């Protein structure tokens, strides 16, 4: 038995760390987060060249072949720098395209994986839930009719994978762009939009096949967002510990106060447990398919709580400056909020885990 990554994946992770820290340090990425599109298009082209956009695909489909463990290793690093933009969304769209298959999907998938095209899934309708209990959008005589909400990074997207009653439809960006009304959320690095659709599209698969693909995307989203959360909590704890050692009050470092030491210990327990849960779930996704759903949902449910605690307490440890825009804790805390709500809620993950356990 061995928990450590094998040599190939350890290398992958190390080079991902190097790349993310160099290409997207917070000092730089803060400008991107506050910029118009919320992403650096150049970096996304590089993600394609690095092969990171094919992480959710088998090698036969142009993917990396590093499996779920490799995927999590890279997302773990992306989380550490709170990498802005639709990285996760592209990975999920790639998986959806791969699952529905067909010539059109494969062509678009190749563009996405190469970093030439930004494709995101447009699924939500209304603002009361991320996954509509009944989809209202229709595909009728070659056109998509309906309104989608919380479409991620829509202003920059080249095409949308729109869920409709008839199935998944690929919709190209019109010449003048999508008619997107921004929906700003707590996480200022995130971009969401509401898009009224009355546009031509291509039906990629019927409702049943699309439903299967989306179920697979949901499973992947639970694991992948957990891996990003691991990076968020790991880095937040590092920020906290450094601050506890450096910040002085009453003439001593605040990290010498037991109240804060014990809080940091509780944060450490959550960070390390998150690491165990995420990589175990990733391992199961690659090697233990029977338990993969349960373990992925368990990791997701755990991460929601763990990130609330660790990222939240980091703001608290920083005190007044923790509540300022200038300091970094809020960036991690906000991303954690986005992951918890928009990539499968904690409550849904708990229910999935219960059902998978036969309860």
């Amino acid at each position: 038995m061995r928990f450590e990554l094998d040599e190939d994946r350890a290398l992958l992770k190390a080079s991902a760390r190097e790349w993310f820290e160099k290409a997207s340090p917070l000092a730089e990425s803060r400008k991107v987060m506050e910029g118009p599109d919320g992403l650096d298009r150049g970096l996304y082209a590089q993600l394609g060249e690095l092969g990171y956009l094919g992480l959710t695909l088998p090698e036969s489909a142009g993917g990396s072949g590093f499996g779920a463990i490799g995927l999590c290793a890279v997302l773990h690093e992306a989380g550490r720098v709170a990498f802005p933009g639709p990285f996760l969304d592209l990975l999920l769209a790639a998986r959806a395209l791969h699952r529905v298959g067909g010539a059109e999907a494969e062509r678009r998938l190749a563009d996405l994986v190469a970093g030439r095209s930004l494709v995101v899934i447009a699924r939500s309708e209304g603002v009361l839930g991320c996954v509509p209990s009944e989809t209202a959008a229709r595909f009728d005589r070659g056109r998509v009719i309906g309104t989608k909400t919380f479409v991620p990074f829509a202003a920059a997207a080249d095409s949308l994978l729109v869920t409709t009653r008839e199935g998944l439809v690929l919709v190209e960006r019109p010449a003048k762009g999508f008619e997107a009304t921004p929906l700003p959320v707590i996480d200022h690095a995130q971009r969401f939009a509401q898009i009224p659709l009355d546009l031509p599209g291509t039906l990629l698969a019927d409702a049943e096949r699309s439903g299967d693909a989306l179920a697979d995307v949901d499973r992947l989203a639970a694991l992948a967002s957990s891996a990003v959360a691991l990076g968020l909590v790991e880095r937040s704890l590092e920020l906290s510990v450094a601050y506890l050692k450096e910040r002085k009050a009453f003439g001593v470092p605040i990290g010498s106060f037991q109240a804060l030491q014990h809080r940091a210990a509780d944060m450490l327990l959550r960070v390390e447990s998150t690491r165990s849960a995420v990589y175990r779930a990733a391992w199961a996704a690659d090697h233990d398919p029977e338990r993969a759903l349960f373990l992925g949902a368990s990791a997701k449910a755990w991460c929601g709580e763990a990130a609330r605690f660790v990222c939240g307490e980091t703001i608290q440890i920083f005190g007044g400056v923790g509540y300022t825009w200038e300091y970094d804790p809020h960036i991690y805390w906000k991303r954690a909020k986005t992951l918890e709500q928009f990539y499968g809620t904690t409550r849904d993950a708990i229910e999935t885990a219960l059902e998978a356990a036969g309860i």
Partner: protein
Amino acid sequence: MDLQFKPEHEAFRRELAEWLQTHLARPWIEELRDPANDPDRLFEIRRRWQAVLNEAGYLGMDWPREWGGRGATAIEKAIYTEETYRADAPPIPNVLGISLLGPALIHHGSEELRRRFIPKMLSGEEIWCQGFSEPDAGSDLAALRTRAEPDGEDFRITGQKVWTTFGLWADWIFVLARTDASDRYGGITFFLVPIHQKGVEVRGIKQISGESEFGEVFFDGAVARREHIVGKIGEGWRIAMTVLSYERGAMSLAYPAQYDGYLEDLVAGCRERGILGRPDVREKLGRLLVDNEVMRANGLRNLAGFASGEKPGPEASIEKLFWSEYAKRLADTALELLGPQAHLVVRSPHSRPGMDWAYEAQWCRAGTIYAGSSEIQRNILSRRVLKLPEAR
């Protein structure tokens, strides 16, 4: 990464599970429920069970064969505890002797001591208790004051030990006693002391559950023989601290396996009460289910690290903090969800078959106190792992 047990481990697990099925007359909960079983009888059942385990070669799992062990790996040892917990086998009475004293003798004791004490410790013919904590030396163990003074060739022990599990049934006690008052750590020596002598008195302490599993031991000039010192004079602290690390990984899978059983009982209870579909109930059960699975993930990681020869890290403190705090949440939730019936003690009319939540709800309160309280574990994590400055 590889979190798969090897075929030989799976085979060991199957063989052990089958053996347990054949040899375990009834689960421990049934023994506790039986009105004929008073504390002494229960102790004898545990002693007999220990002898059966020993006959089959399941004790001292990772000890060398030479000393009555099985020479097994850490993974097999973890599987052993996992399966015995899963089967709800009686807890063995010499648990502290085997987990702490045995390794101390094997790593630090003389050959004479090993020959003299290990076989009867394994068979259960001699029951051992642990004399570490004192009324004024609990979490701050090195503050211990029980002293050992030379008396001719031997030593005389004077002082008081407390929280001594199975003190009332023990034949021997391993004692940390002060041989040098001026040296906090280097003035502590590890003695083996017979209980049945003038100068030793054991009193039971009535616990919140009403039983007296632990007690206090008073020494008033009790004799400890020089040849019964483990290691050298002044090495007691170092030995006591190192033996704790030999247990690494042993419980990594056992607690999650035990809580699997508890959760199953709790879910069944909720189903019987017709509340399993309630969203608030599902949320509570789901969180407990998920957290237990995360505990198992930590355990597998801990074990895998140990098996591949990594140096011990923060795992032990995280593990202890996790399971002991979890156990309280689990029992509190069970009492809440299962209603008044779960408050009925095991021998009350109408008590629930299966899990004894009334006892567990009390017993779990001890878990965050013994073997390094939750606060001590947090101190260890913040100082030794996060390297935060010395507390004020």
